[in-house]
């Protein structure tokens, strides 16, 4: 990792820490949520932005993490830490299975296969309503959200827990893409055949990328359930597969800071426009169209192209 990249990561994470003390309670709450959702986008970005695989089924991984944490807490009385580990294991297992099957396809077929698996997962969460309470979902009681006496529903704790999860995911990916493994993923994105003929096991690399991406997304789902106290089938619906794609594209696919920027941008776009007009999705839709027309690489992508070429 070069010095300036390290500095960038340090400054970015530093800003997120400072932010807590500068902005109002409302925005603290928002940023806690943005950071957790940005973890989801970071996970998605690894697969889409760095490996070039467009999945339309990541809600499956997010929801697996969410239920992987929430169901053991709810029905088996797990403590938070084992529940979080269970979420990671579940997400890793599900993403391995999906990766193993879906990677037999590529391109549009890959999109559909992942979409179908996610749809099956969504329906399953409804079908298993006895445990999941289906679309209605269930609350993770505050009493189950305490680790070593620390109450994770407290705004300050929540903020820094979200920060910690985000920083971990962010640095993991920032480190990964500097490793030979990560560089090979980029090579696969750019030209899969060439990467294979340089001697890389393309299928293996893609499979690991799917598993890592799915597990990070699952961690985001688990963190969301734990920090905001709710798990429900809505998060497994197709809409939540599209969202990380949108966030990553808006922020800049294949940039480390893009997912956070895109998530925050989309969040505040909805928040501000719903203050201005009841037709806030109209504003969102127009903004998306305009961004694709005039900033096709996403916000961070355009910055990299026009101003700072070294942006990781």
């Amino acid at each position, binding site marked *: 990792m070069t010095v300036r990249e390290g500095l960038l990561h340090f400054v970015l994470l530093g800003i997120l820490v400072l932010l807590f003390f*500068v*902005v*109002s*309670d*409302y925005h603290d*709450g*928002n940023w806690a*949520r943005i950071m957790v959702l940005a973890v989801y986008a970071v996970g998605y970005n690894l697969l889409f932005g760095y490996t070039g695989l467009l999945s339309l089924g990541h809600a499956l991984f997010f929801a697996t993490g969410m239920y992987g944490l929430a169901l053991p807490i709810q029905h088996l009385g797990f403590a938070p830490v084992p529940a979080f580990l269970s979420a990671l294991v579940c997400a890793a297992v599900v993403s391995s299975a999906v990766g193993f099957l879906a990677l037999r396809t590529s391109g549009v077929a890959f999109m559909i296969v992942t979409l179908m698996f996610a749809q099956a997962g969504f*329906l399953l969460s*409804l*079908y298993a*309503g*006895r445990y999941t*309470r*289906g*679309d*209605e*979902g*269930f*609350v*993770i*009681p*505050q009493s189950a959200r305490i680790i070593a006496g620390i*109450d994770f*529903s*407290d*705004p*300050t704790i929540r903020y820094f827990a979200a920060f910690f999860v985000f920083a971990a995911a962010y640095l993991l990916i920032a480190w990964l893409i500097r490793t030979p493994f990560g560089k090979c993923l980029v090579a696969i994105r750019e030209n899969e055949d060439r990467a294979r003929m340089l001697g890389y096991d393309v299928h293996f690399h893609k499979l690991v990328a799917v598993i890592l991406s799915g597990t990070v997304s699952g961690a985001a789902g688990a963190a969301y359930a734990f920090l*905001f*106290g*709710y798990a*429900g*089938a*809505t*998060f497994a619906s197709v809409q939540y597969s599209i969202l990380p794609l949108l966030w990553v594209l808006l922020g800049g696919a294949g940039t480390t800071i893009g997912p956070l920027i895109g998530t925050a941008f989309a969040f505040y776009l*909805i*928040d501000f426009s*719903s203050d201005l007009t*009841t037709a*806030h*999705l109209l504003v969102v839709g127009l903004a998306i169209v305009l961004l694709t027309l005039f900033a096709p690489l996403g916000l961070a992508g355009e910055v990299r192209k026009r101003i700072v070429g070294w942006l990781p």
Partner: protein
Amino acid sequence: MSQFTKNYVLPTRRNALKLLSGGGLALAASSTMPGVTRFAQAQSSEPIRIGFQIHRTGIGAAYGRWYDRTTQAAVKRMNDAGGINGRMVEIIAEDDGTDPKRGAEVVEKFATQQQCDVAFGTLFSHVVIGSAPRAGELKIPYFVVSEGHHVASGILNRYTLQPGITDVKSQVEAMAPFVSTNLGKKVAMIYPDFAFGHDHRDYFTAALAKNGGEVIAQIAIPPTETSFTKYFPKIPQQTEVLYHVMVGPAVLTFVKELGEFFGSNHPEIFGFIDSLEAVDIQSPGLEFLEGTYFWEGNPRYVQNNQTSHDKMYRTAVGVDESGASVSDSRDISTYAHMFGCWETLNIIKAGMEMSDYQGPQHRSRLIEAVEDMTDIPLSDDHPQGAKIFNGKTHQVFGHQYISKVENGRMVLAHTTSIEDTFYPDETDYTTQPF
């Protein structure tokens, strides 16, 4: 400007919050702190701000529009009569997209950004359940109008109350005696395959068995389904009563296809009006409903014995004798549910007046005041009927109406007593600390 002041006061507010979480004593102390009192006095001329979580977009939008109209009408009436504790009431409406994630964000916005006194108005269960934890953590009273059993089941928290509309469990259980006595013993149920439908399935099946009947088929329809005929052959031929409840934009298709399936030769049909909420009962293809029965939260058509309260309420909201908008007869209201907004707002008003509510520091007093309520008489404030509030479970109980379709209108056939809707308490929220 507000940004700056907020930054400035932030540290003290944080400390106050920590104190609050420290225990009930700290709360009492904070209200006597001089700074806080001054803040309250300065605010007393300000309007009372009610955050209205509205389904303006998404799957709940048809309900949201009428919840909005009812809310606006109730607030206008309130302000015309001098507001609450001499202060005007202001509605801060924010769309939740009928989505639990956005719903939680909206509650946060009410509590921390818009400085609302209370949050109010949510209908769809998943939005309620997704938002309620945040309301509890931010300690903002959250008055829902959802008819879900989630409040009384005990999964939510002390800050979440449902004082304006009965829950699905009591509705369903109150229907069972009528169905088994008047319509038939062998019942086939059709319901949507998610939590709301599962509540119908579980509570009605049990209640019917208690009343000597039997559910002989449970047919769950997948959500987002748009064509239904293929599921109807699963209705057993010996069915005496068909019990249907459906929600979502495809309800009219559902009912129409039900008619096409049976032709003129159908069993007794008993439905929840949810299956036809916001839909004209005289739509082409629904003729077969003549002579069938519906549960109604509040009778859509003006009845012979209409109370003055219903008359006043109808006029105030702008609904005609057939339950449609006075300005557009094709625009059918969600009459069976939306009264809940009107009545909930009046409960909030009554609670604030009883507790001499001055500002957010009195939120727990407001909740205690509402918890203390029991009998709620029929009145202009409560035009749907008398109710009994259970402070322990935070859930209100009330009369249920069963109407029969006669000449294309729904005519009241039976009114259950409030006691019919009772079931044993499943929780006691008053034991939870604030």
